[in-house]
């Protein structure tokens, strides 16, 4: 994609007026679904994601069970109306990939060995997509897992870093994602800064990669604070 098609950074400000290291506004609500064990609704810029967590429960079919630990099975799904052109409903190559990487990221923090033979099901539904839905999905799923009372080492947080007009930017918008030079979503465990997910599309030099990683870890920590505040506010208000 030719970067000159559209000028993404003007006078140090991005297309939506943010600074390069600024994340879009995030709003998280915990426990929005009555029938799920844990749930979360997240709005991140234009993204709207709802997550339901069920379990730990028995994993069926039985031959998939692991007698030493639980499986974390995330399912990422985009609603047909979530993008401008109607998305053909059902799983596709992209959503299967995101489901897989999300499951692996979340397995990294859950104490799976406490629930042998079980499964923890995480359903991520993207209702509105405006770039960065896998980060939004992981962020919301982490909150929903904590709400479901699942033992975890930490609450994962996720954010993306990218390169547009030769500048490193945090939390890319749709235009930056489409016309930018690189996009790198990561998920971390904020307490230890352990990396749970790292994918990259496009090209970054080693120096840019290292600087970008530092920037995005800081952004993840900001996301983490919002997650913690949302979780505490569900119970904090009624505690006398």
């Amino acid at each position: 994609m030719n970067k000159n098609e559209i000028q993404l950074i003007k006078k140090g400000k991005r297309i939506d007026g943010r600074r390069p290291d600024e994340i879009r506004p995030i709003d998280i609500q915990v426990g929005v679904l009555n029938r799920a064990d844990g749930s979360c609704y997240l709005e991140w810029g234009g993204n709207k994601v709802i997550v339901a967590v069920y379990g730990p429960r028995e994993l069926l079919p039985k031959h998939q069970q692991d007698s030493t630990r639980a499986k974390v099975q995330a399912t990422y799904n985009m609603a047909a109306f979530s993008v401008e052109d109607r998305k053909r409903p059902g799983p596709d190559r992209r959503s299967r990939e995101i489901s897989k990487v999300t499951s692996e990221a979340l397995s990294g923090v859950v104490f799976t060995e406490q629930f042998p033979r079980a499964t923890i099901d995480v359903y991520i539904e993207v209702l509105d997509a405006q770039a960065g839905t896998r980060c939004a999905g992981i962020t919301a799923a982490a909150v929903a897992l904590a709400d479901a009372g699942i033992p975890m080492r930490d609450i994962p947080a996720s954010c993306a870093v990218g390169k547009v007009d030769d500048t490193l930017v945090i939390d890319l918008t749709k235009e930056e994602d489409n016309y930018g030079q690189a996009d790198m979503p990561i998920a971390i465990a904020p307490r230890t800064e352990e990396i749970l997910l790292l994918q990259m599309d496009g090209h970054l030099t080693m120096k840019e990669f290292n600087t970008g990683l530092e920037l995005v870890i800081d952004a993840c920590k900001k996301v983490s604070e919002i997650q913690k505040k949302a979780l505490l506010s569900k119970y904090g208000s009624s505690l006398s």
Partner: protein
Amino acid sequence: MTEKRTIVIPGTIVGEAGKKKPGMGTFQENNNIYASRLGIKVDKADYINIIPLSGVYNPSTGDNIIGTIIECQLSSWMVDINAPYPAMLHVNQVPWKVEFGATGQYLTVGDSIIAKIGLIDESKKIELSMEDRGSRKIDAGIILDVQPQKVPRIIGKSGSMITLLKKYSNCWIFVGQNGRIWIKGEADKVDFIVEAIKKIEKEAHTVGLTSRMEQFLKERQK
């Protein structure tokens, strides 16, 4: 209950490993104790525990539970006990003499029972027993599902809350450790108790609940 109650989330530091021991719902890493689940921090004696605010029932040996039969096999039943795993009830563990293949004559799919949890092995295979005195088949009344974490609050300190409920309703109430409650009595009294239990469940993490509940029950009885 005068001690300050703090709500913690997974990954929060709750203590120092040298001074305290990590208890329920916590883990130790690099000389620190961290919370592993969302709950209320309790700092008692040598241990730091987290009382969870949500989550599934975690079975432990000796719990009295209410289960529902989901499958009849030749010499055993499979029972849903509201845990991540179904439990097995063998014919040797029931108070009746059951012929091989005649399990269905005693308990069939859909029947509910009060049973005790016997053995749990490392892969969480659970065995039930109905041999002790309190165990029985449930014949009438209703079964109410509540969050298993709220069961201690519904029972109260040395049974204070459950005694209160029984006193004001004259119902037969049995609270299973797995979050199922069996209530038997007059229909309007049962409705009244269900309402009271829902109130306890909703306000379980607040202070001074028993006295507030007594007031609620008194008002409703008028």
